[in-house]
């Protein structure tokens, strides 16, 4: 019995120590204001991936070469965007995860929004 207790204690020590050594610092500082210009051309969005941290206030400027229904999963944001008139979208990144961005009109995937936890 004593042997098992010692073994468990050693394992807890090793794993606990490893956890603190390996775990990186969380994204530092307070939530920031982030803004992105998204260009959709020929069904492709540039950049295709937006990565922000939890709590950031995000502003997207979306321009397109043909009319689309810009839709972002998770945050359930949907906006019709016309060519020649960039649309501005604001939201606070309070849900963590990886969310699809699609054109709800043609049901094609444009890219992803990745919100990393703090």
């Amino acid at each position, binding site marked *: 019995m004593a042997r098992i207790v010692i*073994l468990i204690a050693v*394992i807890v020590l090793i*794993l606990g120590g490893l956890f603190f050594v*390996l775990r990186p610092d969380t994204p530092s500082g307070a939530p920031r204001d982030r803004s992105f210009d998204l260009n959709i051309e020929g069904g492709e969005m540039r950049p295709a991936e937006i990565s922000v941290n939890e709590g950031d206030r995000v502003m997207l400027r979306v321009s397109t070469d043909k009319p689309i229904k810009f839709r972002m999963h998770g945050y*359930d944001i949907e906006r019709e965007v016309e060519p020649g008139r960039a649309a501005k979208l604001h939201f606070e990144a309070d849900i*963590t*995860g990886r*969310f*699809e961005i699609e054109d709800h009109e043609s049901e094609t995937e444009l890219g992803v929004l990745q919100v990393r936890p703090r």
Partner: protein
Amino acid sequence: MKTRRVAAAALVFSLFLADAHPALAHGFGPTYDIPIPLWLYLYGAAAAVVLAFIPLALFSRKERDAAYRYPRFDLFRVRPLRTLLTSRLLTGGLRLLSVALFFVVVIAGLVGLQSGFNIAPTFVWVTWLVGLSFFTALVGNLWPLVNPWKVIFDSAEGLLRRLGLRDGLELGAPYPEALGIWPAVGLYLVFVWTENVFSGSYAPRNIALFALAYTLITLYGMAFFGKETWLRLGEVFSVFFGLLGRFAPTEVRVKDPDVCLGCDYCDGEAGRCVNCYECFARATAAERELNLRPPAVGLALPERVPPGGAAFVIVVLAGVTFDGLLQTPLWLEIVRLTPITQTLGAILLPLLFFGIYLGFVELSRILGGGGEGGFRRFAAAYAFSLVPIAIAYQMAHYYTYLLIQGQMIISLVSDPLGWGWDLFGTADFEPRYGIVGAGVVWYSQVALIVVGHVLAVYLAHSISLRLLRDPVRAFRSQLPMLVLMVLYTITSLWILAQPIVK
């Protein structure tokens, strides 16, 4: 026989046709998980290696196998529970609900809206496949009770008997013993392919057609070989949920050995009729037990494993891994650079897993100094120890999916066909995202996989004590098994750490 050959040929043909557009194959509905970060992946791998010593140490002094001596509590001893759980209203109601849902899925698939609102894809791929798998592993196996094909067969047979046909539906053709559980292995491979490779797997009409085709196969199998034989060896979902049910913290047991006379599968003589649903169905109320037990112990029980039993476990493990592998950049490269297609992958991966498994079992047997029964017995016995790894990976991979996509069913029950109905007033329900934050998802995924790994190591060791009957030899035989488990576990973690690609 002829019809079967034609069906098989048609299936093979359709496999190649469908593989012509592998572009968007995987899955149904998006998942919202971020891949686990590298440091956590490394941490999980380290934890898997270090924690494996606990089960090894626990066993080092134990003399004999204690597979049957685990604490259990008979729920039927609690009178109100017994009344509730054995009431006709509950069991009959569940069976009726199951058959009703089966018909709803088929009807929705055939005549419901084909793009957009339709209950068939969500119910089949999320609620039933993922939801019922989790329920079976975490609570208990309901499938023998609610299996719609069994209920349909039973009612058809009851009707025939009432009409004066004494023999019922069963032709009772002899089942070739060597065939064992291989029909279920084959059907499971087809199922994995349908789920992951076939690009039309979530089109409602295809789901209905697959369900109807499978209904034909199952009813035919039950009529031809006998209901019990086919349910145990050929009906792939009975085999699948039965496997998960061995992990479950509940079991059904028959006390009276007389009930098990003539049963080929349970060890009834020694009062060891555990989760033998056929015997349970035959037993009278006084002979039945519904026990709570520690999870996973059912996988260590010595049982007669039919031919193909180990292959089935490997196919399940490879199947869940394949699902994750398809979304990794590595897989994309493999498909781009080699002639391997998605379909070929669905066949090659289980073969690779099986080969690795058999190799390590043989190594373990040699290190343990051989043993009675030879290689086959060892290969069959150890397979069950891998089940916790498969379950843990399945849960880590799917639980957020179930939590988020599963909510869709709330609105779909009100409008199953997409015809604008609102039967229960829930048609406008909007799913809520972000129920679990990404950080919690990471830690729980790694924790699940590591726990599954530790259980697997524990089970393998317990099985080795049974096979070798000597603690020192058993300990030695476990070194290769340990490496095997670590290998599988690190693969699972690695997949969860990969960037997701489409």
